[in-house]
């Protein structure tokens, strides 16, 4: 079955480039130049992935992210020019799955689309309960964590933090998402909790905490557990 991709981008050159290079990969690509057009296509063309550029002529991308997540459970990838970290974070908080910074290569874009599709439907109840990547095994059902063959003892907060990342393995989870879901909404600004707990978690799980293999930092945005 051909996967349908919706590209929301108002710049004609980039739109054409994305359309042709993604079509070559076998996607059925539809394009929209505005939020309103994208909404219509979301309803009628039923795409499998949305590629959303920031700064559209008729409004804010976050509305579209909400629509795509709530009504259709489609993965959304945000594409942005650099120095819009805050905007990027806002859309990820609103439910976008991942982001790409312009300029980007087609190879990277395809890899991100593959990850997003693999985890399609993660908004449904815990699709992933066992995470296994060479050396690290997290079993959410049995509440068991093993690193390099040895069981790892985690404090409740450390475990919750890791579990949250496991449920979105391979995708970015923003600081705000982690803080509100692990500590509670009133801790949304306490980024230092994350710094300190991530350091502890890395010390227990990673072989070289200063060059982590699993618990990756997305500078200025959040964290990502390496895709299994």
């Amino acid at each position: 079955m051909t996967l349908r991709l919706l590209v929301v981008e108002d710049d004609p050159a980039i739109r054409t480039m994305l359309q042709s290079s993604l079509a070559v990969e076998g996607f059925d690509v539809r394009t929209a130049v505005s939020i309103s057009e994208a909404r219509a296509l979301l309803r009628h063309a039923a795409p499998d992935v949305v590629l959303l550029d920031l700064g559209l002529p008729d409004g804010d991308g976050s509305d579209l992210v909400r629509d795509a997540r709530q009504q259709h459970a489609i993965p959304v990838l945000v594409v942005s020019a650099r120095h819009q970290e805050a905007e990027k974070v806002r859309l990820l908080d609103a439910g976008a799955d991942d982001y790409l910074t312009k300029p980007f290569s087609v190879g990277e874009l395809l890899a991100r689309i593959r990850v997003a599709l693999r985890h399609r439907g993660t908004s449904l109840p815990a699709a992933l309960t066992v995470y296994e990547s060479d050396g690290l095994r997290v079993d959410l059902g049995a509440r068991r964590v093993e690193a390099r063959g040895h069981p790892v003892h985690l404090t409740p907060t450390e475990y919750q933090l890791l579990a949250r990342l496991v449920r979105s393995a391979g995708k970015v989870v923003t600081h705000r998402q982690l803080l509100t879901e692990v500590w509670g909404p009133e801790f949304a600004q306490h980024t230092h909790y994350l710094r300190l707990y991530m350091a502890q978690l890395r010390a227990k799980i990673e072989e070289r905490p200063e060059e982590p293999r699993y618990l990756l930092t997305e500078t200025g945005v959040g964290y990502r557990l390496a895709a299994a």
Partner: protein
Amino acid sequence: MSTAARSSGPPDARKVRDGWVGCGLLVAATVLNLLLDRHVSVTSEAMVYVLALVLASYTLGRVASLCCAIGAVTLLNFFFVSPRYSFRVDAQENLFALFALLAVALVISHLGTGLRRETEAARLNERRARQLQEMAVELAVAALPAEVLAIAHRNLNRAFPGPCTVALLDAQGDLHLRAEQAPLRDGLQACIREAATLGPGTGRWPGLQAWYLPLRTESHTGGAACVQNVSASDNGGREHAQAICALAGQALWRIRLAAAMRDAQEQSQWHRAQSTLLAAISHDFRTPLAAIMGAASSLQTQGERLPPLQRQRMLATILGESRHLATLTDNTLQLVRLDHAGEIPMDWESVEEIVGAVLARVRQRDAAHRIQSQVPARLPLIRADPVLLAQLLENLLDNALKYSAGRIDLDVRQRDHRIELAVLDRGDGIPAGEEAAIFEPWHRSDRSGQRGDGLGLAVGRAIARAHHGELSVRRREGGGSAFVLVLPVEAAQPVMEPA
């Protein structure tokens, strides 16, 4: 009305006081003489009056002192010279004594008042000199014309009963006056126009009741002052007012020169920045654009006829040059942004995390695994913008990969209230004497044939400074360079909530 009362008040009061003091002295001398009358001769009684006159002449004004002298002679004649209690004089000797006393009294009065006037003049001059000295000290630290205006106004008010007015000229040559000062405008403008003091005693506009003085130096007039209710004879006062105004004028001139110099420096800096920016844009941006356009247009028009290898090479050129252009654009924008940002938003960040994220990215370009990192555990958190710091670190590591061949060390250390991040390579090193220049935007000392954008280090230093830190370079013993980023650590570290 009120000003007239103010000016005539003190002299009148003084005359009345002089009258009472004079009468008191004469009464006291007469009473004393009446008490001594039985024991002493009329000569001694005359001496008592002389004593009273000496006191009177030193404490009273000229007129009161003269009146006292005449009064003393009259009283001596009436009470003590026979026949007593009449103004007649029977003996020739007594008549002579009275005339002698009158002459002595007049001479004493004259000498005494003269001495007093000189003493007062000396005191006044000393006070004025001290005031000018204090004013000069105050003016030396004044940085704004408004401060000079306030100082001049305060000093004129201290020196003269006034009222006094000071007004400044603006850049357009208009005088700044409040509504109630408007009637003085003509006089103030006239003294500025004539570049001289106008008013009583100056020979110009002598009919006025006020002096109009320009605040000026040889080459510049900064404003004008008006001192009201003055007299033509007060030469010392006028000179003092002129001295105050001259000091204020000099201060205004100094402030104006300083401002002009600052403007000129800023202008020349701006022009220099603009011309380096334009030169850089015209060269650094056009070169990759030319390569991209050349390769792309060649592929478009001759694509069919080119051998596959050459097509691949041209595509690689387009990709490589585009990447270069992207970095160049990012760095240019970053530099402009940091220059105008002021305080950047910062949060608690972990150095270990930032280093880890940067290494993960740079390793992709470090196929030979040349970068060795040393990051101690349990580093304190720092206040930072992580994206900017990561950019800085990535820049340093990329430079090291590009300009050196051997091993590259990334050392992180904590020293007291600082964290030091050092990137050490074994390349050719920075040429001696260029350690400071390489941080200047668009600077090039590169002789390795590698192409840089001349901006990475300038952006790096701007990022370091935005974090209240510093980026510096030194030559390593045995060859190579060490780029060291020093960041401050706040003593008050955030704490974890009890788990």
